[in-house]
């Protein structure tokens, strides 16, 4: 299970990479993709959609089940990773490269976990 040192995380297993104060990329963690299993479908918001921190903004589906993905920040979707729509398996293969959306105009955010805190959370999860 990989946790990258230069990202922040949420309790619901999303990662966030801030490009500057009000712009960030959002994706699912390695731990999340491992527990979900092979993903076969991803549903993303559309460019221009508003997002609210802590609310569902996407979903991913494995053969077995659907899972919600929560947006860690309040802002506007400026870009979606269209590659994932055709190749959701990229989330399994390289979870920290497979960003879901780019959010700009960020005005609010969830309480984030540091890499160390997130690693701790996952350890407890797996016990």
């Amino acid at each position, binding site marked *: 299970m990989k946790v990258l040192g230069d990202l922040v995380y949420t309790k619901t297993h999303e990662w966030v990479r801030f490009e500057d104060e009000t712009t960030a990329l959002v994706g699912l963690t390695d731990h999340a993709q491992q527990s979900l*299993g*092979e993903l*076969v*479908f991803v*549903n993303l918001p559309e460019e221009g959609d508003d997002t609210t921190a802590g609310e569902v903004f996407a*979903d991913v*589906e*494995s*053969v*077995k089940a*659907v899972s919600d993905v929560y947006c860690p920040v309040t802002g506007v979707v400026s870009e979606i990773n269209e590659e994932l*729509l055709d190749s959701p398996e990229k989330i399994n293969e390289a979870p920290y490269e497979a960003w879901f959306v780019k959010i700009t105009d960020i005005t609010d955010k969830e309480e984030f976990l540091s890499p160390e805190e997130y690693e701790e959370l996952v350890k407890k999860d797996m016990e």
Partner: protein
Amino acid sequence: MELKTPLYEIHLKYHGKMVPFAGYLLPIQYEEGIIKEHMAVRTRAGLFDVSHMGEIICKGKDALENLNRLLTNDFTDMEIGQARYSPMCNEHGGTVDDLIVYKKKEEEYFIVVNASNKEKDYQWMLEHKLGEVEFEDISDKIAQIALQGPRSQEILMKLTSDIPEKYYHAVFDGKVAGIPCMVSRTGYTGEDGFELYLENQYAETMWETLMEAGSEYVLIPCGLGARDTLRLEAGMPLYGHEMNDDINPVEIGLGFAVKMQKDDFIGKSHLPNKDSLTRKRVGLRVTGRGIIREQEEVLAEGKKAGFTTSGTHCPYLGYPAAMAILDKEYTAAGTKVTVIVRGREVEAEVVTLPFYRKSK
């Protein structure tokens, strides 16, 4: 508290992801994952622990009469060693369970029922038996291992010559690698394959012997997840999804196993004939974007047309598909429908079942 099958320790050894299912702890998948396990069965072979299934012996002078009255199929002309699929209906024509009956000898039958229904089925049989007949639930003594896939026969031939030649036939007093077992040529995957019934004490040895014999064909263990996607892709109904106490077998396409010409059987007076059906089971192939699951509303021409009963992404076919029970007017192949998936509209098209049929 979930029960463990005799293969529980084996599942842990092979890193099975254990989940509760029908009162047992069983692997939903192993390390390779559902898609690879599914593909193994379609292209090579896979090994399943299905020890949770129920086994009931029916014997006595009136065994045949009892089966013919309890079940919708006709068992009169069965040969010893033959297997026959049948629904079991309630008085209203709804389905109590679907099961397989093997004729073991004259006046003795071996019945295999769904795990989640075994107690209900057994009680039902006891409540409705007539005359000289005994039913005995032997589920707790019996393990079942399914070897499924096009390479199954080659693998099994390394260990035994007790191989039923025809599909839906069984060798009762067989031996596989010296272990006494019943070898049945049946399965729930849409592929050729075998189901081995044996005493619990031999289950681990049998599993490991099969894994070793299958290694040259890259035989892998498969979990409940692949079992479900395989049966769905092959268009096979599953109790609790395509059928239940309120769905009759004829409307979901099991008319071949409902013999209306038989004298009488439980549920007969309430079963429709094929021409008077108001709703039917169909396949849906997703033409839009999304995966359809069970119990989702299906619309056609803007009106409610029915509901889905199972759905997933089909690993071998590579597209999402579902089964649904729809009003008869919307069941023609090619009919365009919309399925409401968590508030979102997903476009789909009615197709003929099964989605997948193995090549001969």
